[in-house]
């Protein structure tokens, strides 16, 4: 039995061949973009000599040395001293002693990582909250000079933020905000809020105002109607905006280098400063980077559905 393939296919539905070609292209592209990530991860489980060997080693014995070096500070000791110590208490202890060193204490990685979490999520929360309220205002009320204000808000994005680094540095020094988490949260909020207002205004414009009006007639105040009716429908936009803001704040490097050095330092400026003996400790740097990627990955996966709808937003109208 064979069926003649003359059945008319839908005009809008791609043919199976087209789907296969598209799928292949997407998979190839995904592989290409993932190679650097894979390389970072592989480097994190290489030994320092393997990580800088030439030609690069693809087959190697994995080790946790990079992670151990990331989390600890170490001092070199004589073999006699190490021999005299009690037996090692853990994997890292053992690895470190194998290199004729002992663990002197924890490194600054987790505090820096914690700073990154606090500053990125804090500024994202603030930027999205303020952005949502501002966008709602611009969307629903007759704001005097609304267009000019919106342009002004956007104009803060028209130059690279680092162009204003010096004035901000001086200002922060004056106000005692340098090297504080609060200072970094305020700074990232200020940068992100313009993006948030513009993105969210689009989303809120799309929510018919009849919903709030109905709620207001049903016995709610405007603020209650905003909370009960507008916010639930804006979740897609809020999620998409939050991810964009978070990615910026999480990855930001230039301001972080300039404005933080000690207690408020975030992970991006910290990671490249991890120095091993006789140069950069690449496995430790790669390990720090690998862990640094996790929060964004988790956050994005949680909000994946909203993000997809949010990014394609505007392309398809209901």
């Amino acid at each position, binding site marked *: 039995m064979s069926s003649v393939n003359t059945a008319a296919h839908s005009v809008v539905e791609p043919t199976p061949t087209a789907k296969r070609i598209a799928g292949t292209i997407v998979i190839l592209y995904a592989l290409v973009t993932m190679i650097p990530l894979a390389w970072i991860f592989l480097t994190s489980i290489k030994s320092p000599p393997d990580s800088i060997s030439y030609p690069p080693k693809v087959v190697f014995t994995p080790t946790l040395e990079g992670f151990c070096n990331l989390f600890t500070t170490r001092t070199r000791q004589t073999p006699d001293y190490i021999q005299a110590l009690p037996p090692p208490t853990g994997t890292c202890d053992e690895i470190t002693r194998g290199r004729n060193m002992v663990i002197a204490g924890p490194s600054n990685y987790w505090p820096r990582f914690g700073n990154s979490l606090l500053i990125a999520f804090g500024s994202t929360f603030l930027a999205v909250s303020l952005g949502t309220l501002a966008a709602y205002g611009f969307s629903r009320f007759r704001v005097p000079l609304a267009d000019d204000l919106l342009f002004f808000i956007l104009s803060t994005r028209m130059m690279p933020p680092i162009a204003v680094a010096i004035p901000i540095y001086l200002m922060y020094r004056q106000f005692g905000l340098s090297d504080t988490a609060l200072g970094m949260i305020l700074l990232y909020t200020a940068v992100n809020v313009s993006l948030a207002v513009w993105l969210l205004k689009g989303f809120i414009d799309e929510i*018919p105002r*009849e*919903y709030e*009006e*109905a*709620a*207001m*007639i*049903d*016995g*709610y*105040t405007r603020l*209650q109607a905003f909370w009960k*009716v507008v916010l*639930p*429908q804006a979740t897609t936009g809020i999620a998409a905006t939050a991810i964009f803001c978070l990615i910026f704040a999480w990855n930001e490097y230039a301001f972080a280098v300039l404005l933080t050095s000690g207690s408020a330092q975030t992970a991006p400026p910290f990671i490249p400063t991890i120095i091993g003996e006789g140069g950069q400790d690449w496995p430790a740097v790669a390990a720090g980077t690998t862990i640094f990627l996790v929060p964004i990955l988790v956050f994005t996966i949680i909000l994946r559905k909203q993000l997809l709808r949010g990014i394609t937003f505007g392309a398809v109208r209901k």
Partner: protein
Amino acid sequence: MAEVVLHGIAKTFGDTVAVDDLSLTIRDGEFVVLLGPTGAGKTTTLRLIAGLERPDCGRVTIAGRDVGRQSPAERDVAFVFQQYSLYPHLSVYDNLAFPLRSPARRLGVEEIDRRVREVARMVRIEHKLQNRSTRLSGGEMQRVAIGRALVRRPAIYLMDEPLSSLDAKLRAELRLELKRIQKELGSTLLYVTHDQIEAMTMADRIGILSEGRLVQIGTPREIYADPANLHVAARLGQPHINLLPIDLLPGAAVPSGALTIGARTEHLEIATSAQGNAEVDWIEHLGDQNHLHIRVRGHKLVTLADPYLSIKPGDRINLTLRQPLYFGPDGERLR
């Protein structure tokens, strides 16, 4: 339920006059329909009563109290919108319960449940209470929207073309149901539409709006039989009223100053006659009746005819006027 009075309200948006010196009394328990074309100010009138807009001048009183400074929530009105009528993130049950859960009311859970189920029965949606509101057909959505208004007992129900997005069959069904419910509850209801059948079948009184002004208000019978001017006459009647020069057809007792004769089906007498003054152009067979397209000396008329009347296109007939409507040069009715 309460009496609602508009005293000379006006509202402009930019250069557009939406409502112009409108005065209207909706009596307690009365079903008033505002009829008018798009842009006549019907919706704005509803929004002014609801408090969603503030009038430039004039007053709105509900049950005798001036509501000018009150928020929509304080005015005790219910509103059914033309579309976007349900909260898409809530179930049918929660949509119906939404007004009852408002901070302004704060009813107990049991009381809310009782009233939601009662209204769901009334609008025949009780089998879909747990559905997401976006998973309903258009007719069901609109029934829920009406239910969300009925779940309260407000001073007045305001409805903005609630049936316009539905198909003809559903519209006819809901029309009857709405009228039945309104009678049962004895509610005061202000209903806006551009559909003359809705207006004629449901209204205790019809108000004709044109360019923000209330042109005429009266019972459906009065508005139909005794229109104040050309505009009102043209709003009602199917087929559309025929506007003719005064000397076109015999049978008219033209008052002085009249310029136009308005002739509906009931104003035209048809007699088959080979020497008649008119010629049948075309016949539309609608089943229960026929639309007759007639030509009289270059003027075209449309009227209804008995389907059993044996005429065909090309036949000559004799047309005579029988107590038609007369209008002066300004469009005002002359009696």
